[in-house]
Every structure is written in C-alpha cells, then in structure tokens.
C-alpha cells in the first residue's frame, strides 16, 4: 500500500499542494480529479521524488518510509511513474525502452516474466520491438510508457494525465488497458482531467481544488455527486452528452 501523509509543496511562497494525504492499495484504481493548476501534477511529481516537498510530508510504500528519496530510489522501492509527456526514451527502440524499465535491481530478476506480462497486455509492442519510439503514434507511445513502468515490477503505478493529447478512441483504449493492469494486481494512482472516463474505471477518487483535497469517496458515489457533476462532468464541451444522460 502507498500511503501519503501531510504532503505540501511550495513554489516560493505559492502553495502548489497543501497537506495532501491519500492511500492507494494494490489492485485498486484511485483517481485524483482537479482542474488545470489544482496541483495534481505537482503532487505526483513530489511522490516520485522529482519535486521537493516540505518537511513533515510522509510517503511510505508497503510500510517502508520513502519520504524525500531521489527518483531512482523511489522506483527501487516499488513506485513507477509515467509523467506527463510519458517519460520515455524517444530516441531509443521499444525493446531498449522496456529493457531500461527493468533497470531497477528489484526488477531484474523478474525481467522476462514482466516482459511477457507487458507483451500480453500490448501485443503490438512485440511487433514493433525494433522501432524507434519517436516514430510511433501517441497511443503506441503511451503503451511503451505504461509497459516501461510495468517492467520495473512496481506495487503502484502512477500516471499523470495518460489521456492527454489522445483521440477519444485511443483514450478509451488507454483506460481499458489500465483496467487490465489492475487485474494484474497493481495499484494505480491516476491524475486526470477526463473525469467521465477515469471515474468509470476507478474504485475511489479524490477531488483536488486549490491545492487541497476537498472530497474523497468511492468513484461510483462521486459520479452521482452534484458538485462533481457541476465541476468536472459538465465543464467540458465534449462531455455534454454524458451530462444530459445524467440529468
């Protein structure tokens, strides 16, 4: 289980994240919803060790304290992060990206097992083994990113807006893939603006507003919450269809 207590991030005097506390268990999808600039990305980057956070913030995985560790030690501890922009090696091949994913010591023993898992999940990557990732489509690159993350044999997979820049169809595909990842027993912490699709696959959700968590509940309950509908499900033009159906 990933546990975060009282995590705050300051950019100068600006608070980008304030006293955030969440938990994510293995085998569940947890989504953090929030508007642009609510502090979602900052939060994930802080957990991943990229963005420094204030003293007093506490992060642990499977009971091990991993607060304030550098990114490579966070991966070693069992948290894989797919940042916005995917964090892949676009000048290298698919095969090399997956091999790099298995670079953490804890993942090396299970490299072939994890590779099988990834190729079962994304059979397309097996066909495209030798392709330079930069030359692939956005959806395929997202597969490489998720595949690379699974190769590190994580307990928890964190993704920052995996649907960003993808067509609705590809977007759906990505979310379906995340459900398959959950079936494999991983915990998923997802940050999204696409509330409709992410709530549809999530088990639990947190609402983030002005750098604070204002609500937390089961995804199935939040979907029907009037405040959520108003703020996240009605806001975007492309989701009006969904809103009408709900109303």
């Amino acid at each position, binding site marked *: 289980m990933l546990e975060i207590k009282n995590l705050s991030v300051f950019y100068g005097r600006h608070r980008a994240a304030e006293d955030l506390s969440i938990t994510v268990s293995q085998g569940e999808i947890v989504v953090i919803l929030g508007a642009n600039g609510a502090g979602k990305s900052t939060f994930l980057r802080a957990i*991943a060790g990229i963005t420094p956070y204030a003293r007093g913030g506490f992060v642990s995985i499977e009971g091990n304290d991993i607060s304030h560790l550098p*990114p490579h030690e966070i991966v070693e501890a069992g948290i894989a992060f797919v940042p916005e922009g995917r964090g892949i090696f*676009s000048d290298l091949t698919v095969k090399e990206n997956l091999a790099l994913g298995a670079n953490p010591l804890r993942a090396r023993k299970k490299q072939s097992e994890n590779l099988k898992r990834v190729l079962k999940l994304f059979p397309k990557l097996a066909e495209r083994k030798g392709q330079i990732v930069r030359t692939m489509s956005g959806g395929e690159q997202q597969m490489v990113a998720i595949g690379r993350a699974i190769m590190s044999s994580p307990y928890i997979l964190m993704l920052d807006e995996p649907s960003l820049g993808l067509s609705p169809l590809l977007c759906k595909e990505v979310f379906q893939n995340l459900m398959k990842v959950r079936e494999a027993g991983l915990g998923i912490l997802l940050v999204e603006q696409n509330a409709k699709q992410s709530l549809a696959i999530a088990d639990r959700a947190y609402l983030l507003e002005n750098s604070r968590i204002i609500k937390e509940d089961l995804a199935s309950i939040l979907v029907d919450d009037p405040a959520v509908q108003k703020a996240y499900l009605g806001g975007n033009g492309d989701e009006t269809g969904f809103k009408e159906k709900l109303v």
Partner: protein
Amino acid sequence: MDIVVIGLLLGGTYALIAIGLQLQYGVARIMNLANGELLVAGSFGAFWFFSSAQLSPLLSLFIVTPLAFVFNWLIYQYLIRPLVRRAKNRGQLEVDSILATFGLSFIFVGLMTAIFGGEYFSYSYLEQPFNLLNQSYGLNRIAAFLVSVVFCVALYIWINRTQTGLTLRAVAVAPESAGLVGINVPNTLALAFALGGAVTAAGGASLSMFLTFDASVGVIFTMKALIIVIMGGVRAINGVIISAFILGFVETAVATLIDPGLTLAAAYLLFIFILLFKPQGLFGGHAS
C-alpha cells in the same frame, strides 16, 4: 593513396579523442575545454613511463587510462557537480562549465609546464618503417591506430550491447526519464565524464608515440575534437568515427597537396561550413 592511408591512420586517433569529448559533452553535458590538456597529460604520462622506466606506451596505456579515469571522476565530483546542482537549466550549465573548464585548462597547462618544462617532447618508439601497398609508414603510427581501433570497438560494443551502456544512452537522450527507471543519474553523469577523460588520455598516450608535443598544445586537440563532435553529431558514436576520418583525411590532403601550415585553417573552414549548413551534425539526424 599515400594521403588516404596517412589520413586514415591519423583519423583513427582523432576518433578516440573525439569519443572522449563526446562522452563528456553528449552524455555528461559538460563542454570540457580542458579536454585537450588531459590528452597532453596522457602524452606526458606515456613519455614519463617510457623515459624513466623504458615502459612501452602500449603497456603504460594500462596505467595512464585508469589514472585519468580517477582524476576526471574527481574533477567531476568536486568541480563540475556543484555547477550541475546550481544550474537552473541546460543553457546556464553550458556557460558555467565552459568558463570553469576554460580556467581549468590554464591551470593544467601551468602545472605541466612547471613539472616538465616548456620545451618540446618526443621519444622514439617503434620507429621502424612498415610497408603497406608499396609505401612505408611509421610502425608507431600503425600501433597508435590499432590502439584506437581496439578502444573504439570496445566502447562501441559496451555502449550498444550492455545494460550499463544502455543506461548511459538513456541518460544522454532523456536525463529526467532516466531517474524514473531507477538510474542513478548523478553517478551515471560522473561515469560518462570520467570515462570520456580516460579515453582522451588514452588518445594522448597513443598520439605521443609519433607526435612531438609540449605542455600548451592541448587547445589544438580540444578544438579538433570539438570540430569532429559537432560534425558527427553530439550523440552518434559512429558519426563521430566517420567525421574523425574525414578530418584526418582533409588535414593530410591539405598538408601534402597545398601547405602543411594550412592544416588547422582547413579544419576550421570545414567546421564553419558545417555550422552554417548542417549545425546538427552530418550524422546527428534528429536533434531533440
């Protein structure tokens, strides 16, 4: 034919030197202007072992190269790393590292002049002629060429075929992503820098077999390495090898056909043309 062979032999050693700079600039992202001084230090190392202990440069190479590795690693940890930590972006790091290593190059020149003196140095090793295609070439040149071939092949295989080599390439293309796959980025950068310095010093040791050198000649080699790296592309190791041969060939051709005094001028002319027409390098391809 003569020009082609001599150009090839020269280019081989240039390739080694340029790969050294490429590791430092392309992977560790430090434009090391003191690179040439480390090359000269390698030359002095080989010279010293040869003149004081009669040790063949082909053997002292195995002492000089690891020493250079350790020395460069220390330079990175104590001089460069604070700059890396402080830099807010790549541009600032570039400026800071150029200024710092430029200063460092003067310190090295001063130290080497103080220790060895300001005169020219050379020693005779393998000065027998070697016949190749009805022409004779110095055996020492051929030995130096073979040394760089061995080093280049070993490096190429190591970088392209091993997991550590892969992490090195990962850090070169996307340092932020590298941290996310559990690569210790600061250590990998230090490794690349130290390895680059070691390779350069090995180049210096093999150059000293046939070239006369002095304490202040380093800057010329820094510039040559820079020309080759820019020409070949910052990250393409095969591009750098080909470019090294091009430079070796151009220099030899100009020196034999026109005037030996014009070799450096020809090299820079080549450099300017590349900056004007193909700034990403002949083999750099996509610049991200």
